[in-house]
């Protein structure tokens, strides 16, 4: 009871952004759980898309506008469309119970549990960043600052990542290339 009172007291001290964070966090968790529990894969994907939207909201709360929009464009707008695209082609009318044998279920539980323990211990150990409201730069997280940081401090990882993408793209083109004897669709 005491804990509940202190929770209520904590709620009263929150700012609007705080309320939004809790609300958004709740919805995020809910939709993330739906991704796992939904029986229809399409519903799963849609819940995943919704989760990405909630994450975009979190980025917004963190004043990372560019990241938020890029998250929508890349994840919700492109990758998830392809997910949906692929799943729509599969005929998944009935629940595919054969693939969910006990072995896979236990393996899933073990992997998930280990991951959760790992993450919890990391968050427990990691220091939470603090900031001084007096010297806080409101432009942090905006696209200009991000660009400056990416192209000065992190230029090598950034360029390496782009080379990696180029390689992946060339690989995709090679895979998709039609050879002489292939059937013509």
């Amino acid at each position: 009871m005491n804990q509940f009172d202190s929770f209520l007291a904590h709620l009263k001290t929150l700012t609007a952004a705080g309320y939004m964070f809790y609300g958004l966090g709740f919805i995020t968790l809910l939709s993330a759980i739906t991704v796992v529990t939904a029986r229809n894969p399409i519903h799963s994907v849609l819940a995943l898309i919704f989760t990405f939207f909630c994450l975009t909201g979190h980025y917004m709360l963190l004043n990372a506008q560019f990241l938020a929009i890029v998250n929508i464009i890349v994840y919700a707008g492109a990758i998830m469309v392809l997910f949906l695209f692929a799943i729509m082609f599969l005929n998944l009318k009935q629940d595919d119970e054969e693939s969910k044998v006990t072995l896979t279920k236990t393996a899933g539980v073990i992997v998930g549990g280990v991951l959760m323990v790992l993450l919890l211990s990391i968050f427990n150990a990691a220091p939470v960043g603090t900031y001084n409201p007096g010297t806080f730069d409101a432009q942090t997280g905006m696209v200009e600052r991000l660009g400056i940081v990416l192209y000065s401090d992190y230029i090598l990882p950034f360029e390496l990542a782009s080379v990696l993408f180029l390689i992946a793209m060339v690989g995709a083109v090679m895979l998709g290339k039609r050879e002489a004897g292939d059937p013509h669709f």
Partner: protein
Amino acid sequence: MDLTVLIIKSLVILAIFGITLLIATYSTYAERKVAAFLQDRIGPNRAGPLGLLQPIADAGKMFFKEDFIPAQASKWLFILGPCLAMLTALMSSAVIPFGDSIKYASYDVPVQGLDVNVGILYVFGVVSLGVYGIMIGGWASNNKFSLLGAIRAASQNISYEVALGLSIIAILMMTGSLSLRHIVNEQANVWEWNIFTQPLGFVIFLTCAFAECNRTPFDLPECETELVGGYHTEYSSMKLGLYLFSEYINMFTSSAVISTLYFGGFHYPFMTQVHDALVGSLGDVAGHNVATLIGTVVLFAKIFFFIFFFMWVRWTVPRFRYDQLMNLGWKSLIPLSILNVILTGAGLLYNIKYATWAIVLVMVVLGATNAIKAPRRKPVAVPQV
């Protein structure tokens, strides 16, 4: 935020919302009129003077038709589809600067829903979400033709988004900002409108905008000769109405974005002189507001022209075949837009503003020489027996 600013801002947002809906409504009327005029007919003229009440009659018809949900359809997703299509269509006009600013006492409120510093990316993101409405609706119908239409829409949108984004990047490089207002203000001088500095980018952007709106010649998702009605085969009543309506809203938004990105937005020649003259004769506040109004009217004239252009093209060009569509997108537009980006970068490096005209010139010369060298067709073809 001050209350007065908030009120003016909400009024601006409401006005933008209302105008978007109104223009979309009358686009349906305009589409039919334009189609008729291009085909030597006169179009709807029975409902009200000049047929101006036709959209209301259409909406009434849509509302009173049977709202049918197929038995095997996934009911909630079936309803969600058109809602999403409408939602994403309405969201995108929020960041477009429709005018300079409204002055009221000491306040200076821009005529824009919201000025985020990633405005163009916002439009891009929302547009890329638009395909979900179509995909979900098409899949939920539980009909092969709807599914095929949905899948065509998805692959078409993803393919053309790449070229669309690359053609925007050339503009971003010239402007150095993602904010639409900043992009507009960069084009204050008529000869620096992006249509003059980025001719190739404009053509690519326009083509991709047609594809993103699912308008002819890229309306493969609703290609009735192959797919019955495409993704909205199973839809009826106002759900179908929402799909059709969202297409017109998308058309309005893309016209607004084209005018903003390439045609200087609310700028027009001799704008500063007009502004100064108005401020001189009407006073600071009133003169400024009138100047803003003129700018907004000019922007809407540009938007209307592009809406007309969308319709003009629709009733001129036949539909592409699907492999032609994909070839055009992946093998022509994307390489061209990458070339455009590179040349724009080179131009920025050596301070040549109109560098991308080089591509246009080369293409025209190549095309002309190729056409001259090509073997002639026989002038009068006589069937051989």
